[in-house]
């Protein structure tokens, strides 16, 4: 527990800056280690398939940042991952594991697809209204596992996994039945172009102002967690439920709020995808945003700034993969393998402990939950 107390201490005033600087080395150690090891293993895999790792990685970087179109694709891939990363990170700060990002994205996306069409006549005015509705539906859907945990003791890992499938089934049914358009592509009708999130232009392709909404969401997450009484309570519950309870902080209400606010971020992410990129909810809808959000959050040590950086890395890998496959015959699935390896190593504190001794464990604060599933 000592390392977690370190993390929680000195959360206000000038000490914040000093603490951030002091902990920077520790904060970067595990993610950088995990990223390095994954790229080394990746290079071995590329060699084994008879390709040149340097050429493959160069193509990867080129495909992610090489030209405005590539940068645009990277921004498009990064945007939803910021939201789903925040969804995981926010709940994690309360000591909760939100595996439900996937379902929450679907709920938000359906909300946007439905309201976007109905309110399309409002033009740009529809955008804030629809996105606010996505925040609300994501919040309510996210609150379900919170209530199940707070009042019925059902563990959130299992319930959020189950709720993913329920959300997907529910939204697919809605999109294919009551809300189905007459068009050839199965799914909802197109949202009026005037009611969509505007494109950034600058040769960035379909990249849109959604990325700024994502950055704003990260700022909001930071302010909520570190600058409000409620955020303090949520973090207190995450650091030590017993002590929080003793101090009169309600565990139940903060559990529900942490999961619900996490859900609100993911719901907004689904809405931004629909209002910014797709203009409708086509079935099958994009997938794995929620699961990749877990990796993003962990890599970013569950801090909003880290989440943005983690999302950028994941987003860049996703867009660089196409170029890599095109230029070097290395299958684009390699990037999933790289992400999986990063995920495997980012919480394996003991590996570095062998190298650095006990200090490594202290540096690992914020990357793991020291509690079981049984409680």
């Amino acid at each position, binding site marked *: 527990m000592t390392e977690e107390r370190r993390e929680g201490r000195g959360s206000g005033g000038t000490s914040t800056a000093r603490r951030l600087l002091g902990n920077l080395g520790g904060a970067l150690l595990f993610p950088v280690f995990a990223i390095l090891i994954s790229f080394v293993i990746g290079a071995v895999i590329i060699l084994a398939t008879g390709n040149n790792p340097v050429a493959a990685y160069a193509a990867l970087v080129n495909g992610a940042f090489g030209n405005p179109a590539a940068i645009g694709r990277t921004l498009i891939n990064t945007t939803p991952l910021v939201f789903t990363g925040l969804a995981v990170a926010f709940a994690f700060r309360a000591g909760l594991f939100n595996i439900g990002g996937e379902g929450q994205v679907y709920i938000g996306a359906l909300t946007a697809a439905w309201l976007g069409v109905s309110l399309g006549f409002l033009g740009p005015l529809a955008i804030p209204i629809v996105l606010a509705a996505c925040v609300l539906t994501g919040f309510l859907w996210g609150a379900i596992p919170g209530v199940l945990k707070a009042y019925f003791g059902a563990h959130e*890992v299992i319930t959020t996994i189950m709720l993913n499938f329920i959300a997907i089934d529910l939204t697919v049914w809605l999109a294919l039945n009551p809300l189905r358009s007459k068009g050839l592509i199965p799914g909802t009708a197109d949202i009026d172009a005037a009611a969509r999130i505007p494109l950034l232009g600058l040769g960035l392709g379909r990249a849109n102002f959604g990325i700024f909404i994502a950055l704003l969401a990260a700022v909001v997450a930071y302010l909520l967690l570190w600058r409000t009484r409620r955020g303090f309570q949520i973090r207190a519950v995450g650091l030590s439920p017993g002590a929080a309870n003793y101090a009169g902080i309600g565990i139940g209400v903060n559990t529900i709020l942490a999961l619900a606010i996490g859900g609100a971020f993911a719901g907004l992410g689904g809405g931004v995808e629909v209002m910014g990129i797709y203009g409708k909810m086509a079935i099958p809808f994009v997938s794995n945003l929620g699961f990749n959000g877990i990796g993003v959050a962990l890599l970013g040590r569950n801090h909003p700034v880290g989440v943005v950086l983690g999302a950028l890395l994941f987003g860049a890998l996703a867009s660089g993969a196409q170029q890599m496959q095109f230029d070097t015959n290395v299958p684009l699935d390699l990037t999933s393998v790289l992400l999986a390896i990063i995920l495997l190593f980012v919480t394996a504190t003991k590996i570095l402990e062998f190298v650095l001794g006990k200090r490594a464990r202290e540096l690992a604060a914020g990357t793991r939950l020291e*509690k079981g599933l*049984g409680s």
Partner: protein
Amino acid sequence: MDLNELGLILASTIRNATPLIFAALGGMFSERSGVVNIGLEGLMIIGAFAGVVGAFFSGSAVIGLATAVAAGLIFALIHAVMCITFEADQIISGTAINLLALGGTGFLMVVIFGSGGTSPKVESFKPIAIPGLSDIPLIGQAFFNQSILVYLMYLLVPVTLFVVFRTPFGLRLRATGEVPEAVDTAGVSVTRMRYYGVALSGILASFGGVYLSMSLLSAFTEGMTNGRGFIALAALVFGRWNPLGAAGAALLFGFAQAITFRVPQDVIPNEFVHMLPYILTIVVLAGFGGRAIAPAAIGKPYRKE
């Protein structure tokens, strides 16, 4: 509904439930030892893929199965090394296993077969009618004209029940998941018991995967497990971490799948039938109709004092 159709539904129930039972029983060994395994989905797909690769190069379904078991074991051991030895977070390691298996099989499809999508056809385990038994009206064809893997599953359920509740190994396994300190005090290695549990989950989940790719079909298709690993996880929880309970839950979920396409879409939409296992799991986890309680030490790395 006539008797013939009922027989078809029963046969379909068995076919749907078989991969779930393999994976759920595998998950039970892991979770009973105290290691959460949400990587069942990944372990299944690795089994499905490796089985087809083994059968493709050897021309033998049995060698395919052996390859699958070896691959499932290796992937399970990655989870074990990460969670048990390196004390990585078990949920995250499980998520990584799923991602690694899904991405890895997609990657290897291109490397081995030249393109993604579906592999070439391979030798598979064909249905074997058991003389006499398969002639019983209604249930004969459903239960006794199935592939060898289904018969293995029939054996596996009672064997698992016996091993877990009637052998010293089972007692140690359960104790490791409940009170690892006591197991340690008794001179049994917690680490070793957990390695056994996780290893068994990989072996059994790969059987489930092989059933999909080399019995229901005779080829591997990317993403073919399609969430079955998570349904198996649901069956495990719904069955309260008990072999009989998990098998019963898997049969119920298999039945739900079997009737999905027989219920008219305008009466109950497929999507709602599909939701059923997940809703039921939440209901029992929330304590309606008798609480489902996980092993006490599940999810916690064990450190010797």
